[in-house]
């Protein structure tokens, strides 16, 4: 991977990782605030347990330390693309439920959605630098979700935000690992090239 080994590529890689870490940290902080608003506006108990929901990417990872850089980027990108769709759905549902009466939750959701989109783009740039290119989005759309009751929608929303908060922390760690190992550190395992 000659492109990934040049000094300028190394500098750009380091710069992208550093900026990505800052983006992820800011995102986590805003998602934490959004969670507080969401729980309050939706009338939920903050300590309620939410079962894993189909289509919500789980941040939990086994053997996290052994992942290659490329795998980290691909997992992150798939997750944030899914969150982008899920948050857009939540925003739509929130507008249907609360409409113009809500001056807080809607804007907070929209702001986080923007950050998620920006972060996904940032990850695509990192993947480009790894000379792998970002995979096409067609295959990464979450399946169409069944129509849920209002309460089920609220619980799913809580699950989405909680998982997003975990992902933000994981992304900081992933990018730090990426920065530590430098560009082009994820191709040794013979992962398939993107189209």
């Amino acid at each position, binding site marked *: 991977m000659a492109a990934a080994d040049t000094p300028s590529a190394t500098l750009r890689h380091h710069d992208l990782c550093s900026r990505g870490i800052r983006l992820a940290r800011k995102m986590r902080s805003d998602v934490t605030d959004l969670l507080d608003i969401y729980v309050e506006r939706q009338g939920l108990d903050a300590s309620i347990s939410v079962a894993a929901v189909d289509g919500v990417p789980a941040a939990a990872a*086994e053997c996290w330390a052994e992942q290659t850089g490329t795998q980290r980027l691909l997992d992150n990108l798939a997750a944030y693309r899914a969150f982008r769709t899920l948050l857009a759905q939540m925003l739509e549902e929130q507008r249907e439920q609360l409409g113009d009466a809500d001056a807080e939750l809607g804007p907070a959701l929209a702001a986080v959605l923007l950050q998620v989109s920006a972060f996904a783009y940032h990850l695509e740039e990192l993947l480009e630098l790894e000379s792998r290119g970002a995979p096409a989005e067609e295959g990464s759309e979450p399946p169409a979700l069944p129509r849920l009751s209002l309460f089920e929608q609220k619980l799913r929303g809580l699950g989405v935000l909680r998982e997003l908060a975990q992902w933000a922390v994981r992304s900081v760690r992933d990018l730090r690992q990426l920065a530590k190992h430098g560009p082009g550190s994820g191709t040794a395992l013979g992962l398939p090239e993107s189209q």
Partner: protein
Amino acid sequence: MKCGSMDWDAAVTWTANGTDIDDSHLNGSYLILKKVDLTQSGQYSCYEGSSWHLKYQTYLRVGVPPKEPVLMCRSNNYPKGFYCSWHLPSPTYIPNSFNISVIHGTREMVCEKDIFPKNRCHIRYLQLFSTVKYKVTLTVTNALGKNSTTLTFDEFAIVKPDPPESVVAKPVPNNPRRLEVSWQNPSSWPDPESFPLKFFLRYRPLILDQWQHVELSDGTSHTITDAYAGKEYIIQVAAKDNDIGTWSDWSVAVHATPWTEEPKQLTTEVQITETTSTSTSSFMPPPTTKICDKGAGVGSGAVAVCWTAGLVLAAYGVLFI
């Protein structure tokens, strides 16, 4: 207590720790202890009345059922795992056994007991970044009953590093308001490069109660630049993972005093003054004066006073008289 196989109406003597027990506690040959308290623990023996043959002996242990145990779990070596430790709020005076279970979602995890201390075990993380809570239940059992307590927590919430180690504070030469502080990551934190810590430093002069605080997002050193000249300071450092968990306890305190200039030697001035007042014609150099050597440097606090400086001091001495 029954005296072995002796009949109810047999004449017996009971002793507790070698001391005869009054007959008022007997119902026939049975020993009846009412409102038993801890002081009644001991060896109880029953002897046949006339022959004084030992017919029965037992050790009575008076205890209490266990109260709800106190359980704490913490990760000071993230992301490797966490440990849980426990104790009873008050003694039971009889042997207790402890059983701990750790559940993560549907998975039961192994808590490996430490040899020392005995009231601790540790768990290795099988997953990181999970939103599923951990549920730890500790059950304590003894011959008189059992009790238990349960803790439920997130992976991130229990992360708390050990305090920083090897904290050193030194004065900065020729800087009366500075102190250089350095420290090391706690040795229990396994991967500070991938999971960096941030630090909180606090310092105050011993003569004041108010602490100054500085938060440092990277590095393991800091220079205090606003110390009061000449005052002894007390300094401590705490650590926290950059992104999750809580602050460590404060480190061991270190003391340091900023650099101060060496006071001038007043003995030289006084002697010259006395010499000048008694003698009008001769000038005696003070005994502490040394001839200046161009090659000499200032080392280990030693000061060399040149002949020229001695004459200057002599002049000042005359002025003061």
